[in-house]
Every structure is written in C-alpha cells, then in structure tokens.
C-alpha cells in the first residue's frame, strides 16, 4: 500500500493525476542503442564504410563459390593474362586465377584482423580493469608487464619467432599479433576504471556485498562499452595492416596459404609491367582498412554524442536528456 493512496484521495478524483508513480511515457522507447543507431545512420561516411565491409565479406566468401577457378588451380593455357571474361582479375606467372587468390587472401586478412581486434580488446579490458580496480601490487605487476610488452619491438619478435611456427596453423600468428596490440588500450581501460570505481553505483554494489569480479564484469566494463567498441574496430584495421606487413616480408601467413600481404609481395616486382598482379590486392587492402576506419569514426561520433558532448556543428542533436527534465 503506497502512502500516495492517501494523498490522492484528498483531492478531486476527477483531477487525480497519477502523481509521482507516473514515469514519463515516451512515444517510442528512446533507448541508448536506438539513439546510437540513429546517429550512426545519419553519418553517410560511416554508412558507406559499413556497406563496404559487408560487401567485402560477402565478396570474399561468396566470390569463390561463383568463380570457376580455385585459388590454387593453375590454368596452363593462360599465363600472365590481363583481366578478361575468363579470368576476371587476370592470371599470374604460373596461371593462378588472381580473382580467386585475391578473394582467398581477403578472407584470411579480414578474419585475422577481426580475431586480433576482438582478442586484443578482450585482453586489454581484463588486464586494465583488474589493475585499476584492485590497485596495489596487482596494479603494479600488471602495469609493469604492460610496459614491458610496449617496449619490446613487436615486428622483430614476430619475425624471429615466425620460422618456429612454419607449418603450423595461422592461428598462432593471430595469437602473437594480439599479444602485441592490447597494451595501450589496457592503460586507457585502467584509467577509466579508476574513475568509474569512485562512482556511487560501484560503491553501492560494494556495500551490498557483490564480489569484485562481478562488479567489474557487470558495472565497470559495460560502462566503458563505447570505448571498447571503438577500440576493437580500430584495432581490426591496424591488425589487417600489421598482418599485411608481416606477410609481405614473409613472416606472417606462410605459403601455400595466401593473404593480401603475400599477394602484394609477389606482385610488387611487376607492379608497373603487369599491374593486375598488384593493384587488386592493394586496392582491396585499402578499401578494407578505410571502411573499417570509417566505421570506427562513425561509431565514436555516434557513441560520444549520447554521452553528453554535442559537437558544435551538430545543430540538430544536443545531448538528449531524460524526458521530463528540460534544458
């Protein structure tokens, strides 16, 4: 029985408002996700980037199903042919279909990029949040370890280690790349954890008796979700480029497997004379990384605006507040 039953009965029943129990009834549920999606869709570059990524994935996985040639098949009747109706992107010196190879390479690069992005962000959030929340020795040890990895030259170490996993699956390569990408985000996560730790809802959870790991997983990390999403997206782009670079020098993906890096490596010498060997792989690489960056930018604008900072040029969208509390 609410005490407000007594107060509303002293007033004219015809005018009895729902009183304090009436939460505002919005016409549509303005959840944060919906707001973010709306803002994202308003940014044409971000939408373009998103469509491009979807198109690339579709092309990379569906393309080989449509193409008559496999990536390792050699067509002995056509060596070094320019693009034609038969071979859409032309052929290499030994008759491999460049389209099939490029698609296969695209698959590999995209998957590696995606995995590295997700794993490195996941690792960064766990390490950063633990360091920030527990403080003391945990913080010192984890941050010392982070700083150590920051100092080590990633490229050299992967290059040195690569002969030892020649012949093993490319997942080892993914693990190594991820191991060298998470450090800076971990520091940022740690900083944000230190701020969030002082927020009253975290104090409330602590005084309720909620164990530390549950507080981190349920309260601290979800409130950093915007940062983590943006970071993961941008890490994907960086990972694709890193993988390409390493594969170019022969340290990443090993033959007979192809990636955009290996394709670019084999096509560099003939870039001017037989451009189709080089241009398609390079072009797809640029499109992939550019689209990922556009999406990352778009996400950052969409997420940041709802967290309160409206940009000056954004006339239409100052930070929305709860319905019922005006400017």
């Amino acid at each position, binding site marked *: *029985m*609410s*005490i*407000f039953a*007594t*107060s*509303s009965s*002293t*007033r*004219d029943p015809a*005018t009895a*408002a*729902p*009183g*304090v*129990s*009436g*939460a*505002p009834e*919005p016409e549509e549920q*303005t*959840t*944060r996700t919906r*707001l973010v999606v709306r803002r994202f869709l308003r940014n044409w570059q971000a939408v373009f980037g998103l469509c491009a990524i979807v198109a690339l994935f579709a092309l990379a996985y569906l393309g080989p199903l449509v193409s008559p040639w496999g990536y390792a098949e050699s067509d002995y009747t056509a060596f070094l042919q320019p693009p034609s109706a038969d071979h859409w992107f032309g052929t290499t010196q030994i008759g491999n279909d460049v389209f099939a190879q490029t698609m296969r390479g695209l698959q590999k690069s995209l998957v590696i990029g995606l995995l590295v992005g997700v794993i490195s962000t996941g690792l960064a959030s766990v390490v950063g949040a633990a360091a920030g929340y527990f403080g003391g020795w945990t913080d010192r040890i984890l941050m010392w370890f982070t700083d150590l990895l920051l100092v080590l030259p990633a490229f050299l170490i992967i290059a040195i280690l690569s002969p030892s996993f020649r012949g093993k699956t490319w997942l080892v390569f993914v693990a190594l790349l991820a191991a060298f990408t998470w450090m800076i985000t971990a520091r940022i996560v740690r900083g944000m954890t230190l701020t969030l730790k002082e*927020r*009253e*809802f975290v*104090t*409330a*959870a602590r*005084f*309720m*008796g*909620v*164990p530390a790991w*549950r507080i981190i997983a*349920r*309260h601290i990390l*979800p*409130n950093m*979700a915007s940062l983590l999403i943006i970071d993961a997206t941008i890490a994907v782009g960086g990972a694709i480029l890193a993988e390409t670079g390493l594969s170019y020098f022969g340290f990443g993906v090993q033959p007979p497997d192809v990636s955009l890096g290996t394709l670019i490596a084999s096509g560099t010498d003939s870039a001017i004379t037989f451009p189709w060997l080089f241009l398609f792989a390079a072009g797809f690489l640029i499109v992939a990384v550019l689209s990922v960056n556009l999406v990352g930018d778009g996400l950052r604008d969409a997420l940041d605006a709802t967290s309160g900072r409206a940009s000056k040029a954004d*006339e*239409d*969208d*100052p930070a*929305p*507040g*709860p*319905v*019922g*509390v*005006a*400017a």
Partner: protein
Amino acid sequence: MSLIDPVFDRADSRAGEAVLRVTDLTVSFPSEQGRVQAVRQLSYQVDAGEVLGIVGESGSGKSVSSMAVMGLLPPQAKVSGSVRFRDTELLGKPDSELSRIRGRNVAMIFQDPLSALTPVYTVGDQVSEALLAHGKGRLTKQAAARRAIELLDLVGIPNATSRFKAFPHEFSGGMRQRVVIAMAIANDPDLIIADEPTTALDVTVQAQVLEVLRTAQEVTGAGIVMITHDLGVVAGFADRVMVMYAGRAVETGAVDEIFTRPRMPYTLGLLGSIPRVDATGRQALVPIEGQPPSLAGLAPGCPFAPRCPLVVPVCEEVEPDLEEVRGLVGHRAACHRSEELGDPDPAGVFGVPEPTVRSTAAPRGRRPAVLTVDGLAKRYDIIKGAVLRRRVGSVHAVDGISFEIREGEILGLVGESGCGKTSALLEILSFTTPSRGRVEVLGRNVATLDRTTRKRLRRDVQVVFQDPIASLDPRMPIADILAEPLSTHRVPKEEIRRRVPELLRLVGLRPEHASRYPAEFSGGQRQRIGIARALALEPKLLVLDEPVSALDVSIRAGVINLLDDLRARLGLAYLFVAHDLSVVRHIADRVAVMYLGKIVEVGDVDDVFGAPQHPYTQALLSAIPIPDPVKERARERILLTGDLPSPADPPSGCRFRSRCFRYAALSESERDLCEQQEPPRERHGNSSDGHEAACHYAQVHTVL
C-alpha cells in the same frame, strides 16, 4: 576608502529608474524531441538599487533567461523579444558591442566559483583584467593593480595585498566567490545578475557571501537579479520576487506579499513543501505531485495544470496571463483562480498525507542499539616522494567521534564540507577495523568479523547515496538494479521476481516500469529507486548520505515523506548525514553536529535546535535562511570569521577557537583554557539527558 568614492556613482542618484526592462523574451533550443521552448514570453523589470529574486526549479528557464540578457547563449538558440538595458536594446546586438556592455554596465556572478576563475592566473591579475578590459588606456597596469587590491579588501578578503598574488585553488569556495563578486563590481555596473551564487557553498559561507553582495549593492547602487531555488535566501535578500515555472513567470510581487499571500498554487505548494528549521511539531510536508513538464511540445493550457489541486476545465484549455490580482497592487499572478485562493494554508489546498504514527514501543534507553561508534578515527597519510615514499604527516579526517543509534531512531549527522561526516560514513560502512576506536553494528564489533559474517551483516546495513544519477548503473534496467542485492545474497529467483514489484510499490512507483532504464526517470524517482534498492534486503539500519540535496525543491517533500513513512512502518533506524539542517529538523530524532572531525554537540533535535549550547551550532543555526521575510530580516546573524582551518594542522586545544565569537570575547586567562585543553563532551547546566556539548564556556543562546 578615498579612491573608491569617485569611481562608484552616488548610490542614491540612480535609485528608482528602471535599469533593465525585459519584454516578451522567448528562447528556444533545438533538440531530439523537437523545439524546446525554454523561456516563453517573459517580461520583468529591475530598478536601480532593487533586488529582484527569480525563483524556480530546474527547467523553469531562470538561468536561460539571464544568459539571454547577457547574450551568452549558444548559437543554436533562437532568441526573440526585447531586452532594454537603460535605453539600449541588447537583443540583436553583435557580440563586439555587447562585450563593451558586459563587464562594465552589466555584470554576472556564476554558480561555481572554481570554474569561474581561470586557474593559471593569479586572483589579482583576474580582477585587474576586469578593470583593464574596460579601462581602454585610462588605467595603467599599476593603477589597476592598486584598485584591485582595494576591491579585494572591500569584499572582505583578509590580507588583500599579499593575497593579490595567490591562485584561485589556494582559496576556499567562499573566498573564491568573493573574488568573483569583486570582479563583478570592479567597473561599477548598473546591473548585477547573480545566478545561484551561493548554491555550491556551505550555509555559514553562504551567509558571509550574501553579506558581501549586500555591501556590493550599497556601494554600487546597482540593481541585482538574484536567481535561486532557495526560498529562504530570497526571503532575506530580495525586495521583489518573480516565480518562474515552465519558462514563464507565474507570480510576481513584493517579497512580503508573495510569502504571506501567494496567489498561485505553485508558489503556495513550494512554500508548503520546504521544511523549516524553526518548525516545531511533526507535520508531514506538503508534496507537489508529479514533476515539471517537458518543455518540448507543451500541451495547451496552464503548464501547472497536471499537478494543480485547483484545476478546472478552463485551466487545461487556456494558458492564464500574468495579470494583477484584483485588490492587490503590484502583485501579479498567472492563474485563472487566483482570487479564489483565499486559504493560504498549503496543507488545506494541496492535501497532506497523514503522518504515519510512529510505533514507539519502548523508551530510548530500553531499545537495543543498532550502531555504536566509540572514539572512531580515520587517518589519511600525507605521503611525499615518488620513489622513496615517506609519511610526512597525517590528516585526521575523523578524530574520535562517538554516538549511538537505537532501533527505530533517526540520528542526523550534520556539518559543513570538510567536517569529516562523509569520511566517517565510509569508514563505518567499510566494516573494517578503524585506525582508532570501535564500531559495533547490531552488537557485533566489526574488528572481529570474518568474511562470511561480514557479508551477512551487510544485509542489515544499507546505503542510499546523494546523487540519484550516479548511484544507479545507467546500463542496467531497474529490475536488475533492484535484483542485484537479492541475487548477491543468494535469494532464489522466484522470490526475486516477487519482491521487485513489491519494492517498487513500496516507494510509490509503478511495477510496470521495471524494465526501464534509470535515464528515463526523473531525479526524484531515481532516488526512490535507490531507496527501494536499499530496502531490498530488509535492513535494520539505513545510512543516507544527503539523500535529498540533489533533488528539486518540490520533489524533496515527497521523498522526505516517504522516508518518514518507511521508518514508521518498517521500524528502521536511519543514520542521516546532511548539511541541510531544515531537513534534519523535520525528520530526525537526534542530531550530532560535527566540526573538523569532532562532534561538538549532540542531543535531541528539539533541544539542540531550540537551545543550542555550542557556539558553532549557534552560528550554524543563525545562518540558515528561513523562508519568512519578516522573521528573516529581523534575525540576529552570527557570522563566523575566517575560513575552516586545514585538517592537517588543526588549532591546539579546542579546534573551533580560531573562528569562535565566544573565544574572541573572553579574557586572556580564560582563553588559555581553550588553547590548551580540548573540551570534553558533557552535559552543561540543566540541559536534558543526552544533550551534550564540547565547550568550556557552553551557554544556551536561542537563535531561531
């Protein structure tokens, strides 16, 4: 003083003329929900030498209207209407011309003095800058510096010559606000707009700053527009009052008229909903149902209609104009039924919930103790050095406090910022062995607890925090927030599913809203959710850290009534930490006053408020503004001198002696006692049992 007179115009030569005339001011902003009409056809006038108090809650448009007058709104805002400062029309002027008027003829004082002052320049430089910006070759830098020192002296900054070179962060909040006032009056303005200048300050500091504003007004003869939500401040300071609601003025008039005979139900409701520090007896506060309307897409008719007890059909169709009430000169109200508002008793018009009878089973002495604190101290070490860290000193944020809370009792712990009440709270709640002293919760010493017992004990002590926005995780729906304490303590899922709607109903919310997110609720509702979460585990002691200070005035009454009702029904004990003594007077049984980490006075509420013994309590009570203009103007004010001493280096003996007016009136030999011996907390004279004060020369002095 000789340099001051020629620069400031004679105050009386300009009295009576209209300095500012605002006509039909309309401001709108774009937003996600459409155009927000923040200010709608606002008209008012300020004469020279007069103080106009603009009262309103959040969303009423009071700050926006003043920013529009100064031309400080962002470019997205659409402003129309007329703002005449003396004979010049301000609206539509380019920023360069407005810059010549701003700071010289019209000055503004903002709410937060820390952000109003640039941190990298000295205070003296900033005051000189205010002078030089409009001096235009007339003033040399040295002359400006000299004038700045005079101004700092005028506003009451001690040692102005040496403080001239200090930085803003070296000042306390009250001192910073004085510097801002010095900057505002530097060029002898005709109009000073003060936007909630004392909201961020403690009560005693507020009293000092209001004094400074009065001096500023006398010296410059300017008209002052004082924007605030605190009706007590308005009662003591303003000559005329304008009440704003949903972007327009709903009542204007002389301050005495408005407070004794309000003609608009909103004003009446506001007056009835504020707890008064001089109120005796136990009546429930008169809450105003509902919350202020969203200014995007207002419905036709009076915006107050959904919350008004006197609403009739015409109210929902036609918005009333601000018209003179028949029979009263100069008193205007925007209400269709303003003449019928004969009964000035808010309880009669709005209806007040019956105060739930408190089932006091046994007298205090026989009830079990829920919380016992004995000599609690919390020490923070000051550590210097990065590599070789060493302790160079310590701050005793809490330095030996003792109190006891019995079952079903409310203890109010009051004090200003820096007194250590929040540190005491956190120390008690952490359930760890304190630096010194003993904490017993429900009879168990927290130093002897192991982890499982500690977790189990947490069920019995729960917390409600100050900031309703920050205390709820914005990413969890309400149902999850309420379920969290239950699931942490292994309550089965069906039980949780049953309990969550029950909790929502207990605090006056609708159970259907359980799937919504905190952002979709108003401040008052969020605080109710916080209270519901604290009650989920059926605790015996509820610790509340300033639960209503972040809420709007008209919402506070509802939450305070709720807390009162819950206490009576569930037999809870509260530890109520607050700096707002009016709320404490209303709801608490006993009160303990803290100063610099020590409790200086403790006792039953009526004893301490009615017959305070310690000089700090007396000063505190005299500084609290009462929303009654006649009483407020006739009151004796005890102003404390100086600033709060640094807790790292408190005065020897009695900590309050550096600011104590009683100490200042003592003879040399009597002062020795205060300097050398810390006064013990004890009963004095024939005060009632349980009323103790820590003062060597305690004397009752009624200030309310």
